[in-house]
């Protein structure tokens, strides 16, 4: 009798073990979804595990859990595990996880136990990659000029293994006027790159920061790109040079003649020459419009002005660039010592001229009178 009892227990154990083995074989993991696909250090994301009962009998779950490891924390685990999984049915378990600061490949483990024995354990492949979005300034002027508009191009590239989304660029500066104020790029697939152009018009010295924002899953990351704005003279800018200056007296003032050349590499448009205080421009050439000066081109000019008690007067050159920005340069012109404006006679005649006319009249009258006198 005792022997039968022992055999019965052994048979029951064998039957139970076989049933348990059958149950675990019926449940399989059919899907694993990670968001983001590849984490960055300290990113928070979700892990979805889908299991399916491929057997013909329902299975009762006794415990379901996700076990983290050193670099992966499970923040929320809403599924405690009790429940029934019908034959041919699937069930999805979602967990919120957060990775720590290390990068590499980690395997948190998903496991479930079944009522009556048996279990399922599935390691989940989780990558942590700290490479951020590649962002750089691909084009900018060598030197910014105050008030002059230049283009700055920001290039973005995605070196990661997963798609990043909501990429946008926002310029931040107090030293320039930047248009547009923001550019939305959208998603960047792995290996994809995009450019974004901004028009920058400096108003002074300072920094210009392009904040490149993107999302890896639900995590927002920012890459700041800072370039200094130090207004100076652009290398290619038009450079009007005044030479061959001659100052001469005219009635009521002076006349400056000379040549203005463009020694720059860009055209100077709407070039205008005039004088400024202490000189007062007078007719006929208060202002001399030279027009457009192409690189290496030159033009003569002529301005007239009145000035008293001044040995040097400022000669003003105004011109515009292709974008219409106005520039002004000043060159000092020296009035030769002793050079005095020719006196105006207010419509009257100069004494010298009166003298010449009177003398001519007297000589001619004398000659005629003398010629008509009878010879004695």
């Amino acid at each position, binding site marked *: 009798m005792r022997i039968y009892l022992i055999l019965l227990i052994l048979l029951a154990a064998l039957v139970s073990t076989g049933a348990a083995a059958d149950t675990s074989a019926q449940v399989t993991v059919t899907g694993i979804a990670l968001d983001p696909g590849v984490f960055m250090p300290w990113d928070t994301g979700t892990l979805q595990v889908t299991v399916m009962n491929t057997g013909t009998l329902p299975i009762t779950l006794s415990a379901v859990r996700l076990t983290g490891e050193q670099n992966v924390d499970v923040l929320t685990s809403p599924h405690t595990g009790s429940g029934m999984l019908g034959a041919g049915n699937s069930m999805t378990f979602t967990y919120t996880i957060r990775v720590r600061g290390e990068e590499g490949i980690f395997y948190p483990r998903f496991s479930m136990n079944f009522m009556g024995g048996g279990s399922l354990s599935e390691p989940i492949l989780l990558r942590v990659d700290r490479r951020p979005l590649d962002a750089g300034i691909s084009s900018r002027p060598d030197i910014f000029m105050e008030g002059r508009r230049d283009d700055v191009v920001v290039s973005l590239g995605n070196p990661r293994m997963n798609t990043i989304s909501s990429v946008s660029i926002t310029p931040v500066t107090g030293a320039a006027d930047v248009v547009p104020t923001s550019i939305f790029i959208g998603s960047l697939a792995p290996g994809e790159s995009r450019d974004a152009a901004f028009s920058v018009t400096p108003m002074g010295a300072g920094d210009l920061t392009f904040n490149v924002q993107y999302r890896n899953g639900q995590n927002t990351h920012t890459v700041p790109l800072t370039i200094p704005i130090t207004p100076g003279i652009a290398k290619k800018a038009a450079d009007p040079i005044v030479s061959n200056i001659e100052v*001469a007296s*005219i009635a009521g003032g002076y006349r400056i003649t000379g040549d203005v050349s463009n020694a720059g590499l860009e055209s100077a448009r709407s070039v205008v020459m005039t004088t400024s205080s202490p000189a007062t421009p007078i007719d*006929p050439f208060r202002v001399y419009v030279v027009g457009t000066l192409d690189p290496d081109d030159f033009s003569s000019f002529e301005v007239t002005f009145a000035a008293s008690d001044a040995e040097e007067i400022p000669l003003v050159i105004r011109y515009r660039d292709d974008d219409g920005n106005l520039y002004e340069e000043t060159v000092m012109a020296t009035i030769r010592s002793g050079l005095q404006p020719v006196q105006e006679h207010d419509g009257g005649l100069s004494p010298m001229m009166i003298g010449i*006319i009177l003398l001519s009249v007297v000589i001619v009258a004398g000659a005629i009178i003398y*010629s008509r006198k009878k*010879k004695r």
Partner: protein
Amino acid sequence: MADTIMKILFRPDEFFEEHAGKEPALGLPFGIVLIYAILSAILGYQMTSLMAPMYSSIAEGYEGIIIFFGAAGGFVTAIIFWIVASVIFYLLSMLFKGEGSMKKVLEAVGYGIAPLIAWVGIAIIWLSMVADQIVTPVIRDFMDPAAVDTALEAFMTQPAMAEYTLLQTVLSIVFMIWAANIWYSGMRYARKLTARNAAYTVFIPVGIYLIITIISYGVL
């Protein structure tokens, strides 16, 4: 020769009376006209040099040609003036039955041009003195008559140029009267005219010339 010139200038009646019966000799008169023509060419050169920049927008690089034509124009005009004046006097004297040859008239008119040399000489000197005060506007658009008129007016009415124009006008009148006095004597003997007919022959065209000159200046 100096005595001859002095006599022509100050005792033209005596000079031409002495030469009345002689064959006409154009050497000295032509020399006088030639000097007058050369000085006129210099004056023309000065004026076109001042005005050439006005045309720089359409004739850049051709200023030399413009100045050449200015000088040549002055020279040719002086020669033509001599010939035209002689022809006019000759034709007018025909009305009064003048008898001398055209060559004799050319001789007399040539001598009479001597005072005009002084006028042109003074004009040259004066223009040289004020040239650096004269501002020449550039005509940018020759298709715009208003722009051309404005530029020319600005050029002519600027103080230095206005003064020069006045001096030139007054001296041309004064010295033309002197020249007319010589031509009067010259025509009287060259064409064997009475004093009154010689006066008509010379003073009527000269008077018309002077009136035109004064009107051109804008006085009348």
